[in-house]
Structure formats: C-alpha cells, structure tokens
C-alpha cells in the first residue's frame, strides 16, 4: 500500500518536473537505496555470485581447464563413498534434529515448571553448550572420547561396561558425532520453546483445567498447538544447520573411521580443499542445495504466515 502511494507520488513529482539531482538525493527511495547498497553488494558478490560460480565449477575437470558437463556428478554416483555420505548426512541430520527437538522441549518444560525466580539461573547454565564455540567444545568431547584416557570409559568401567570405542568403531563414531551435535543444539531448542511457553496465556491452562484436562491433555491440546509455529520454524532452522554441519564431525572424527562419519560438508572439504579437486568438491557441496531449498521454502512460508497474522 505504501509502495503504491510512493509510486503515485513519484509519478506526480515527475509530472511536475521539479527533479534536480539535489532533490533526487534527498528523496526517500534514493536514501533508502543508498542505505541498503552495501548489503545488496555483499549479498550479490559474496553469496549469490559464489553460489552460481559453484554450479560452473562443478562442470569442470580437476585442473579446471576443460568443460566436462555432468561427468563429475556421474563419477560421484558411481562411487560407493558418495552414497555412504548421502546416507550418513540424512541419518545424522534427522536423528540429531529429532533428539534436539524432543530434549529441548522436555528441558524447556522443566525450566518452565520451576518457580520464576530460579529459572534464570537454570536457563543460564543449560545454554552454556550453545555459547561455547563448537570447535572448542568438540575438543573437550574428543578428549572425553580419547581411546586410551577416555574419562567416560573410566567411569563406565566401575559399572563393568566398556571400554567403548567412541570414535574408533563406525557405529559408535556415528553415535558420538550425533551425541555432540545434540549437546550443542538442544539448548537452542530449549531457549526457543521457553520463549514460546512464556507466550501461552495462563488463562488457557486455567480454562483447560476447569474443563477437566489432565497434565498430558493440557500439553497436547493447549501447549503444542500454541507452539506449533515456533516448533516448525526452529526444527527447520536446525535441520539446515545440522545438515550443513562441519565443525563437529571434522574435529571429532575427520570423517573416519573409513569415511563412516563423513557428511556432505566434511567430504566436500576433504575432496575440494585437501584433495585439491575443487570441481568435485563443489559438486559434492551442491548436493546440499535441494534439501536446504525445501527447508527454506517451508520456513519462508511459516515466516510469511506469521507476518500476515500479526
């Protein structure tokens, strides 16, 4: 609506022919454009251009002198490791996100349950994993998982368990990587849910209690529907971030043992940067696009819906 008003204004101004350079510089749309110009340039040159450049790179041969069409992709499809990476990326992202979402929801509920006075303290403690740079905290996990000095195995040995090859065995390594990811990401869900829980009006619970709803029914019929939007957005966000994760896998296992924990980002790094095959690395990372795009579309739909509601 404002846009239209502006346009008619512009038309009127053009008709009156009083436009000088000075006037134009003072005009709202010109000022606004100049204020957003750095942002536009940044996005155009460092995000949009490289994204398309990746498409171009993916069609070149290893020395980047010859156009090879889709043969990089054909090559990937024939490699077993590639399918392993696809499988692992999906398992990694989906499992981690589900656990983060559920755990975050449970923790948020417990924090919300206790008297308001103490909530700040608990919230503060529980968010620490999210605050520490993941590269740093993963080092701590690496040390906790150390094959010979693992503090976990030391503790478990008292219960007659172990030693567990945390990063040495394919299945355990996958478990470890997902565990660390949950540790880093669950607090984020907790914080988002907690904010959403606080926004549910107390009267709704009182009304539900008067209607005879028990604890579980209150969650199912009041809390969850009220939080549906925030749950959806947070989950999709997390799905993107988890799917594109690099730090944790790189530091904890570097993709090993025998590529059994590689995901798209780490494998692309291994091939593109460490293996100096930039076109093939670009091809690998491009496989992240479809799932990211789907998640992005859903997020955008939700964000717009929220925008329309308010």
């Amino acid at each position, binding site marked *: 609506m404002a846009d239209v008003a*502006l346009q008619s204004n512009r038309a009127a101004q053009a008709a009156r022919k009083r436009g000088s350079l000075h006037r134009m510089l003072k005009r709202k749309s010109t000022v606004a454009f100049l204020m957003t110009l750095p942002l536009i340039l*940044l996005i155009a040159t460092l*995000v949009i251009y490289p994204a398309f*450049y990746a498409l171009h790179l993916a069609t070149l041969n290893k020395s980047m002198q010859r156009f090879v069409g889709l043969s990089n992709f054909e090559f990937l499809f024939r490699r077993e490791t590639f399918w392993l990476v696809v499988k692992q990326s999906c398992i990694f992202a989906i499992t981690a996100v589900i656990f983060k979402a559920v755990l975050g929801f449970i923790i948020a509920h417990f924090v919300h349950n206790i008297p308001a006075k103490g909530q700040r303290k608990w919230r503060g403690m529980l968010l620490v994993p999210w605050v520490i740079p993941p590269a740093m*905290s993963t080092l*701590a996990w690496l040390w906790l998982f150390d094959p010979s000095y693992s503090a976990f195995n030391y503790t478990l040995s008292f219960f007659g368990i172990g030693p567990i090859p945390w990063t040495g065995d394919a299945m355990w390594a996958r478990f470890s990587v997902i565990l660390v990811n949950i540790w880093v990401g669950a607090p984020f869900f907790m914080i988002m849910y907690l904010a959403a829980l606080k926004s549910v009006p107390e009267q709704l619970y009182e009304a539900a209690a008067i209607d005879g709803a028990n604890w579980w029914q209150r969650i199912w019929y009041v809390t969850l529907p009220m939080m549906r939007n925030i749950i959806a957005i*947070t989950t999709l966000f997390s799905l993107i971030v988890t799917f594109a994760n690099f730090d944790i896998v790189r530091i904890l296992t570097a993709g090993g043992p025998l590529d059994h924990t590689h995901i798209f*980002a780490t494998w692309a790094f291994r091939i593109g940067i460490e293996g100096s095959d930039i076109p093939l690395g670009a091809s690998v990372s491009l496989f992240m696009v479809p799932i990211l795009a789907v998640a992005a579309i859903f997020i955008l739909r939700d964000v717009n819906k929220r925008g329309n509601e308010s």
Partner: protein
Amino acid sequence: MATVTIDKAAPTRKVKYGSMSRDRTWALRWSYFFLVIFAIFSLTPPIYMLITSLKSSAEISAATNPWWVFHPTLENYVGLLTSNQFLRFFWNSAIVSIFVVTITMLISVPAAFALARMRFWGSAVLATGVFLTYLIPETLLFIPLFKMFAVIGDWTGIQLINKWYVLLILYPTLTVPFCTWIMIGYFASIPKELDEAAIIDGASWIQTLTRIFIPVAFPGIIAATIFAFTVSWAQFLYPLVFTTSTDQLVMPVGIITTLIKGDVFNWGQIMTGALLGAAPPLIIYAFLMDYYIAGLTAGATKG
C-alpha cells in the same frame, strides 16, 4: 490493599491450586531432578576442560582418576600465555572479531532501517532475500569462494588467501544477514508515530536513524553485536580453508592445527587453549545473558 499485592507477589501457587499442592510439590521435585541431570550433561565438557587444564602432562598420562586434579598446576596457562604463537592467535581472533562486528553493524543497521521503515521499490523482496541468505550455510560457499579469491589473486596480484584480513570479507556473509534480520524486527517494533514525530520535528532520515532509532533499539543493537562477535569468534571452516601460515591463524584453527602435532596430543595445553578460546563468548554471555537470549530468539520470533 498493600498486603494483598504483597501476597500476590509471593509464591501463591499453593493458595491458587489448593488441593493440587501435593501434586505440584512432586512435579517440582521431578523437575529439579531432571534439570540437575541435564545440567550435568551440559556442563561436563567445559568442566572437564577446566579439570584437565589444571593438570600436568605427567598427571594426565598417569591415568589416575580423570575427574579429579591431584596436583593442580598453572603450567599450561603459563605455557600458552607466554607463547608468542598463541598470543598471536588470540590477537588475530580479537582483531578479526572487532573489525567484523564494526563492518557488520555499519552495513546492517542502515539497511535494516531502510527495509523496516522506508518502504521502497523491491524492499519486501530484499528483506526476504536477506532472510534466505541467512539460511545459506557457509559449507555451501567455501569452495567457490576459495576459487574466487584465488582467481582474484591471479588477476590483480592482491594476495587474499592465507592473510587474516580475508576473513574480514568472508565473515560478514555470515553475520550481516542475521543482524539485518533481527534489526528489522527491532526497528519494526518501534511505533510509526515516533519517526513521524521526528520528521515533523525536522529530522532527516539519517538523523531519525541515529538520534531516535538507534538509541531506542539499543537492546537490539547489543544483541546483534553479541551475535556478530560470537559468530566471528567461533567460525572454524573459513579460517581453516583460507589461512594456513601460523602467524595468520585465529584461535580455533590455531589451537587445533598447532597443538595437535601428528599423534602427539598435549591434552593439558589443548584443553587450556580451548578454555581460553571459549572464554570471551562465555564472559560476554555471563554479563549480557538477557541480550544474548533476546538476539537468539528474535531471529525466529520477530518474523
């Protein structure tokens, strides 16, 4: 009247729920029980960092109880804080983060103001674009960016790869979209009448931004600054790809590439380094927790 209000402020759950007070007590006990478990889960790695950082190499390799420090020593801290190399990493990280925060705020605050208030042709599309950009992970772009900068180096002779300042160009791609997005949210929550009052008072758009919007949305500015700082401080992939010489490295990469030498893990020093690397964000978080959390939730809730 006064006594009634005081009663209300005090924990009146018991009064409110009457017969349900027994249930509530149990619910509370369970809540605390699980919160303690989750807190242990959350704090084990950082606490273990601290424990290990206080041990000598001898104690670490002696395989005594790893959860206890028998002979606390500060030798790891002394060793790192007197090492020029480590101080160099810290310095690089600090410089990069401060510059990136400055660049980010200079780009995103005016842009957010324009997008939130000065509706112009294409502004809605651009706002959506900013949000989408925020969703593009760095792991998608590092390979083409690496090649781009290599090509630029070949063409112009400006060597960007393996220089710490290349990070000043790269990090804003991660910080600017999100900061712009949350600033749009903060600016949009300012009543429209406030800028109209400023316009009638004779303020230009720039003056409205600097003298009204920035002071009023100051909590948002702090939240965005914290976000930009923590992202630049924690970023691992870009410095790993773009810098290799030890004098150009930032903290996370520096610790991982220099303290891990082949198979020899000096865990005491690594944990000390990790703890020192985690310290700046943790300190900021400790003092500005509310702003930190506001920024975190603003991104998704202020859509």
